[in-house]
């Protein structure tokens, strides 16, 4: 870890890292704590895995804490997640009480760290009520929302709003997600880590190895969606799109690769629904991968002809940038953060239905030159906009900004 910044300088450029060093200078020595609800699985944990060590290397005293809870707690927070993304979900008073009690227990455990912190980042709704347990807090508290809350189920948002309104600031991935809150709302899209196992370059042998490992035919076309088994990721819609496209490309194979996250109790149910929709088609490969199968996912994304992310709601959808980083055009749902990454006709296609996805799959499979050209544009677009170094720069900017009371111009 000692030379992590030097490694990033090789990918992103010396001046990018130099920039980070200068921007972080006024934050040197500050205690910065990130809090979320899982150490493994999902985009938030992946980002924090690298963001925290990088901040430390820049001289910031950064740390990462994870709250704990039982199955009921995670079931409730999953309901929060679904409701905030627009599902009409009722959360009972009993579940809300349990959610609050779990946060009370975690607040007691984390008090020594949080009371003393200069800046606290609370990620997503799971630990949001922690703030209420620190009325005498010393530092600035920021709520970082990674979810698409553009059309939240109002009763649930009203409840959560009361927990997050007291923060000093919040961060959303897109302007469309920003809410009516009495504090400054920064806009920071997330990023991918080009040096991680999931995105680093791989040998051809490792890439072709995934075909053998999962019994996929390397001589036929492969479309891939990597995501949790979650209804908002629409795995059943992807199967529909595959079936429509297969009429015109009979050799087409579909790989649905997903994992389970500690804080997602619905995964098993959606996995069963997906298997039922696949109906034992031998060309549909449903892979339940462990949370640390990063190199496998990397190899699958590189091996695939087309990457799909047909979400119907999406906070950001890091798998889109991951696929683009591997030089693949991505066919994605026309929602949330996917819109920021897929530029129609340039880096991929935005679609709203399985039929739309099928049309674009057919188009790309029959225009290989276009597929390659869009893939190159996609990789370049990610290099300029969605690497971890840009993400870190914007976090540092927000921290400096907030510490300076969010004035329009801050001269350091």
């Amino acid at each position, binding site marked *: 870890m000692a030379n992590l910044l030097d490694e990033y300088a090789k990918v992103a450029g010396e001046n990018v890292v130099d*920039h980070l060093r200068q921007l972080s200078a006024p934050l040197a020595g500050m205690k910065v704590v990130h809090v979320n609800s899982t150490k493994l699985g999902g985009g938030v944990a992946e980002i924090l895995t690298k963001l925290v060590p990088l901040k430390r290397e820049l001289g910031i005293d950064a740390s990462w804490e994870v709250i704990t809870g039982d199955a009921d707690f995670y079931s409730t927070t999953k309901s929060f997640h679904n409701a905030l993304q627009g599902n009409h979900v009722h959360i009972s008073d009993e579940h809300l009480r349990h959610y609050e009690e779990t946060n009370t227990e975690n607040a007691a455990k984390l008090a020594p760290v949080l009371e003393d912190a200069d800046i606290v980042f609370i990620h997503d709704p799971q630990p949001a009520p922690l703030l209420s347990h620190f009325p005498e807090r010393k530092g600035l508290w920021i709520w970082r929302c990674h979810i698409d809350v553009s059309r939240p189920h109002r009763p649930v948002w009203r409840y959560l709003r009361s927990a997050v309104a007291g923060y000093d600031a919040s961060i959303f991935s897109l302007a469309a997600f*920003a809410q009516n809150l009495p504090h400054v*709302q920064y*806009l920071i899209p997330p990023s991918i880590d080009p040096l991680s196992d999931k995105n680093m370059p791989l040998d051809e042998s490792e890439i072709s190895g995934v075909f053998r490992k999962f019994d996929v035919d390397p001589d036929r076309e492969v479309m891939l969606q990597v995501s949790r088994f979650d209804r908002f990721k629409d795995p059943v819609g992807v199967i529909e799109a595959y079936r429509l496209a297969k009429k015109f490309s009979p050799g087409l194979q579909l790989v649905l690769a997903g994992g389970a996250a500690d804080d997602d109790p619905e995964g098993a149910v959606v996995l069963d629904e997906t298997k039922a929709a696949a109906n034992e088609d031998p060309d549909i490969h449903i892979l339940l991968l462990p949370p640390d199968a990063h190199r496998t996912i990397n190899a699958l994304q590189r091996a695939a002809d087309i990457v799909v992310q047909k979400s119907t709601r999406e906070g950001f959808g890091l798998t889109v940038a991951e696929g683009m980083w591997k030089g693949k055009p991505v066919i994605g749902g026309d929602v949330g953060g996917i819109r920021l990454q897929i530029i129609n006709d340039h880096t991929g296609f935005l679609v709203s239905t399985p039929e739309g996805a099928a049309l674009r799959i057919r188009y790309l499979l029959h225009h290989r030159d276009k597929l390659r050209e869009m893939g190159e544009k996609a990789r370049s*677009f990610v290099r300029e906009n969605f690497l971890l170094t840009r993400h870190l720069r914007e976090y540092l900017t927000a921290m400096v900004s907030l510490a300076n009371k969010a004035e*329009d*111009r*801050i001269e*350091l």
Partner: protein
Amino acid sequence: MSSIEKKAKTPVTDDGGFAIKDCALAAIATGRRAQNLKELRDELETIDPACLQYHFWGGLLRPVFDDPRFNNGFARWVFQSLHNQPLAERLSVIDPTDFDGPDGLRRELVDVIEEELDRREVLPWTSREQQFHFIRSQIVVFSTKRVIHDPGELRDAVSAMTPSSVFYHFIDARRRTPNGVDDFSTWLTDLGDEKYRSLCTRLRGVDPYFMTLVEIREELMDIFAEYLGD
């Protein structure tokens, strides 16, 4: 953060050097949005001036892959979401440096939109998903600790600049300096040597609207090499 001080906003140092600075931009949601032209007009009347800066220039430092025909966020939205190409073209030719301050720019935007509203019997709406979101920008400026004293060093200095440093000295300068010009012109003019007059004129001829910051940097390097030698 007590060590942070407000410092002078020009790049010229006490001993006549050019201090190279860099910047980072924070994008901040205002929660204000528009779904049709009338709403856009109404919001523009009262929106924070920092929003105008963001939607005219901030895109250069944010993820963009937009239609290069339209060089500000308002024009792009009118074209892409309201499908009104004539109005998008009229909004696109508005040059913020023609106005002394944000109020003049705001008035011009509102006037152009009102003319269009006067012509319209029916108001086109875009979908909720395609609303215009007003974003304001906030700039954090910091020193790179590099100072040059000889204009002959400009080409090499610019070649080593980050895109955001180019943004600070060539774009942000236009709203910061008294004459609304880039920092290089300000410095060269301050040196008071007649021989830099044609170089300043040439710099003012660089059209930053249709170039990325990297392309602007290359253009500046070419100009400095041409006028000041490699």
